[in-house]
């Protein structure tokens, strides 16, 4: 016999008029190797079919199942119940708009982030289908892949003090995304152009240095280092722009 688990789960369906946010307890028996993915599905299938939550890959690759598990933002699919006490709370991520129960709207938030940071390769070169690819050092390719590994789960945003109080803050994920393009030699943006995107309070300079993002990133991306990299570049760019008497918008 496994432990008897009690999951105290946040419930609220904003599409039902008069529905009130509340915590609801569910009990189930733990089994060997149980993850929160298994537990939540069992609850939905056997106890409460209206329970809303999100999973896609169930393998910690897609980033859809981030939620607050006993107060910490984590991926539910790879959270083993044995790492938790027999009674614990499950809540939706803060910052993102609530869809219902544990489900939040990360799609709109992240799409907006891509557009604000213009997170695509900026180049004046035209693609020529008859030409070979431009050569690149394998070390550079591997360096780009490091920040590229972000799965946009939103854990870092949920854990971020600034993002929780300032709606427009890009968060560690946004700054990491910018770092990814700064590292890429195919992107021809100058530091001054990047400065317009992230050299401000909503970007690289809005972070107050608590570094919860780096502590909780499920992909273990060095968010702190990437922020430092972007800040250094932006500080230099800012200085240069200042010296030239250039006005930054």
């Amino acid at each position, binding site marked *: 016999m496994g432990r008897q688990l009690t999951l105290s789960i946040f419930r609220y*369906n*904003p*599409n*039902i008029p008069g529905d009130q946010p509340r915590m609801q307890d569910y009990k189930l028996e733990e089994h*060997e*190797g149980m*993850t929160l993915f298994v537990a939540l599905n069992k609850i*939905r299938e056997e106890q*409460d*079919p*209206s329970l*809303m939550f*999100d*999973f*896609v*890959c*169930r*393998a*910690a*690759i*897609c*980033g*859809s199942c981030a939620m607050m598990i006993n107060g910490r933002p984590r991926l539910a699919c*790879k959270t083993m119940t044995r790492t938790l006490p027999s009674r614990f709370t499950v809540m939706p991520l803060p910052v993102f708009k609530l*869809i*219902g129960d544990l*489900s939040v*709207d*990360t*799609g709109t938030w*992240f*799409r907006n982030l*891509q*557009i604000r940071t*213009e997170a*695509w*390769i900026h*180049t004046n*070169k035209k*693609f020529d*289908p008859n030409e*070979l*690819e*431009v*050569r*690149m*050092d*394998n070390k*550079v*390719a*591997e360096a*780009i*892949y490091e920040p*590229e*590994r972000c*799965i*946009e789960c939103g854990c870092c945003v949920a854990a971020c003090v600034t993002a929780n109080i300032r709606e427009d803050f890009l968060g560690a994920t946004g700054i990491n995304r910018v770092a990814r393009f700064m590292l*890429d030699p*195919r*992107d021809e943006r100058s530091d001054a152009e990047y400065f317009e995107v992230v050299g401000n309070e909503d970007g690289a300079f809005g972070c107050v240095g608590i570094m919860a993002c780096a502590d909780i990133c499920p992909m273990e991306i060095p968010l702190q280092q990437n922020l430092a990299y972007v800040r250094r570049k932006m500080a230099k760019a800012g200085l240069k722009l200042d010296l030239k008497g250039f006005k930054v918008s």
Partner: protein
Amino acid sequence: MSAKHTHICDVLVIGAGLAAERSAIECAQAGLNVIILSLVPPRRSHSTAAQGGMQASLGNCAMGLGDNPQIHFEDTVKGSDWGCDQEVAKMFCETVPIMIRQLDYWGVPWNRVVAGKKKLPDGREIEDLKEKEGLITARDFGGVAKWRCCYTSDGTGHTVQFVVDTVVCKLGIPVHDRMEAIALIHDGETCYGAVARCLRTGDLNVYLAKSTIIATGGAGRIYAASTNAVINEGTGLAIALDTGVVPLGNMEAIQFHPTGMPPTFILMTEGARGDGGYLLDKNLHRFMPDYEPKKKELASRDVVSRRMIQHIRAGYGVSSKYAPQHLWLDIRHLGRKWVWTNLREIANIAMNFNGLDPAKDLIPVIPTQHYTMGGVRTNKDGYAYGLKGLFAIGEAACWDLHGFNRLGGNSLAETVTAGFLVGMQVAKYTLGATQKFDYKLVEDFVKKEEERIKNLISGKYGKENVFEIKSAMQQVMMDHVHIFRTGPSLEQGVAKLQELYRRSLKIGLRSSGKGANPELAAAIRMPGMLRVALCVAYGALMRTESRGSHFREDYPKRDDANWLKRTLAYWKEGADLPTLDYEPVACPYMPPGDRGYGEATAGAKGSK
């Protein structure tokens, strides 16, 4: 109109994975107004889970020198066990190198050639040339003559999807995520778009378009154990089948991947074997060379999967806490640095889900449902059979690049290549099409869906439990329509599925069904999933031969005289079985022959 929102566009793309987004880009660049619908944000699509890579005959790495589209084509046809459309395969193999380079231009950080001498895990020495340094490199994969699988560590799907999505953002193509298409709007001749249910609010929406593309991926979740994401429930296939006039092609061709990791059945990439990993049995004996002396672990997936089950049946399976019967994947000899750089994603998965460190531990593996070769049958330009203005691409389509067995690395490559090639055809068709709608027809489709939802909520149909039916269906597919199939077992399976199908028409909700209610979403999908499952099972029962992944123990030989043909499954209104039809498979470039691996070559019991 009673639907809350109506959206009008030139091209409606259902799905937001790689095939979907790549085709949307092509249409948007032609100046068309495109809307993408998706169950989830694009970057959560199952395409991002693809680890291994994309096959393209660039010929840059040492073991890929001299490669060209013709060799890739021959590998693909052999891999398909002569079940594929050879014209499609040819077009694909010629186009995919350009796709890889375009993805590079868009920002994919492909791994590159590093010049110098290297020793492979099997002792062979190779040398990457100075003149190729910095070009895109490739790794080995199953069933291929050359190393041609281009990759970014083992996160290829992730990097490619993210980069393609950047182009979608840049072009400003709207993505309506959490929006599920639940019925196609058509008059039996032309498709006019779809009725969709918003998974944020539960509201019905209408999408009217000149062209509709189905790109919803596979249907792996009709099986209990699948490497697929939990959203891969085959709804795109189901809504096409529901029209009654669009057939699904070759649904019996289901791929089982040799290395799913129990108990979660998450995929361990074929790149693990491509990079030199072995399979071991309970005695830690490397058994694959006994069965497949030439290709060993790198025969095609259908062959390796069967050999593994054959070996387990012979009494060599491992019994452990992971599963009652499984085998081991051994990548320890590749070294910690290689494992935690080039195979890091699977190392993480093994660590997270089983607490294993593959640099020092063996990984439990068992063949697991992985890929749906069949799908909405299209011609070589991606036009769905049966309805004008309807197209299909990617895993949801039977464009028929893969025939009865897909080679690893050909699916991710197919998504972008078909997205490009078919996307051009869609653009061409759409630019010449006029938009006209019969509002009465649209209204009728909306009313029908509203009625269905109302009755599910009120319990008018009955009180059947959707989750019980789903789990029973998944078990039937495991028990009767798996790697090894026989007539009597398939007959039982079909009968059980028919019974479940009848029950699925009597589902009633236990919850209110209000808002983004997940029980309602499952209930709406359930009969369609069963229709798709019946196409698989019934197609398998009727195909009395073995070809690629479809293996009949009572008909163990490939039968080109009678079965060089493609199954077309239609669903007529009120039926509880598909109607099967067949069309010939032409072999204009490569007549049927020996694959060079597998049972036909090595003998049914292997050379042991």
